[in-house]
């Protein structure tokens, strides 16, 4: 059900697409109701209603659709992600996902910003990976309660430090002042040691690894880092 607040968030581009769709629909309905003779004028109007305007709607719809796939709301629209989204938006959570979601740079795109592939073909590869998620959801998790599936959900491949290093360059002064960072510099840069491992910063979504030893342990108890903006 579309509520009024969600309508208020529709972008100006979407309103253009919707206007095109409404005009095209009006042309088609008028043709179906009045059945005018198929002269050149009718065909020109139909070319607008069946060609130009729907194509504009589709193009803008693609842009908006792809943008939508980057939002937390999109990731959270599968019930299996409910707990992950709740944790990411929990102001009291000290997990990596929650800490990063509190910053404006990640905000309501935090799932995508952290999990996307940052390589040259990253956008396409990320979308392909997303199709994999859809497959797993439809074939396995769809009818399962989130509490039952939480222990089975796992990341497709280990989280790469490369993603963390898009922001944390590993060369800043504050970062280098941490003894563990200095000692593990090469391992961190090559991905031998994961930033999100037990004993370092811990799991990004610690609640989901409650059964694993040390899941709650992470070194982000620094009040400055934990509070966020």
């Amino acid at each position, binding site marked *: 059900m579309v509520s009024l607040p969600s309508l208020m968030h529709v972008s100006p581009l979407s309103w253009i697409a*919707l206007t095109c769709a409404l005009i095209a629909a009006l042309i088609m309905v008028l043709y179906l109701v009045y059945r005018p003779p198929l002269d050149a004028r009718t065909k020109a109007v139909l070319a607008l*209603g069946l060609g130009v305007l*729907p194509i504009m709607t589709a193009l803008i719809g693609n842009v*908006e659709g792809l943008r939508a796939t980057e939002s937390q709301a999109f990731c959270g629209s599968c019930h299996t992600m409910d707990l992950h989204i709740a944790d990411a938006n929990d102001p009291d959570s000290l997990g990596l996902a929650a800490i990063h979601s509190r910053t404006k740079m990640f905000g309501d795109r935090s799932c995508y910003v952290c999990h996307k592939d940052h390589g040259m073909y990253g956008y396409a590869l990320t979308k392909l990976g997303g199709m994999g998620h859809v497959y797993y959801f439809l074939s396995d998790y769809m009818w399962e309660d989130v509490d039952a599936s939480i222990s089975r959900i796992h990341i497709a491949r280990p989280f790469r430090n490369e993603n963390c290093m898009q922001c944390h360059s590993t060369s800043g002064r504050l970062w280098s002042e941490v003894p563990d960072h200095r000692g593990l510099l090469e391992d961190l840069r090559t991905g031998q040691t994961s930033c999100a491992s037990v004993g370092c910063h811990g799991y990004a979504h610690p609640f989901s690894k409650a059964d694993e030893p040390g899941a709650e342990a992470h070194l982000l108890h620094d009040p400055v880092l934990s509070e966020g903006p």
Partner: protein
Amino acid sequence: MRRRIDEVLDTASRRRLLTAACVLGLIGLALMSWSLFDQGWIPVMMAMSIGQLVGTLSFALFVLVVIVDLRRATFRQSTPPEPRDLDDP
């Protein structure tokens, strides 16, 4: 195969084709518009797959009507201009 295509193009009803194109177009537009408001995975994926497939089919039917029209049209032969005698003042 070619004869079969010719037969379809010669006997196809333009009105039926356009009716089908309009109905499919309305379905496609509805799916695409839905995703502009509700950005969950179902509307977005429906719009970008089924919505666009149905919309493309609708446009293809319109193009088919144009092709049928062109095949049935009788074009008047253009007459070449009268040769002018260049010596004539």
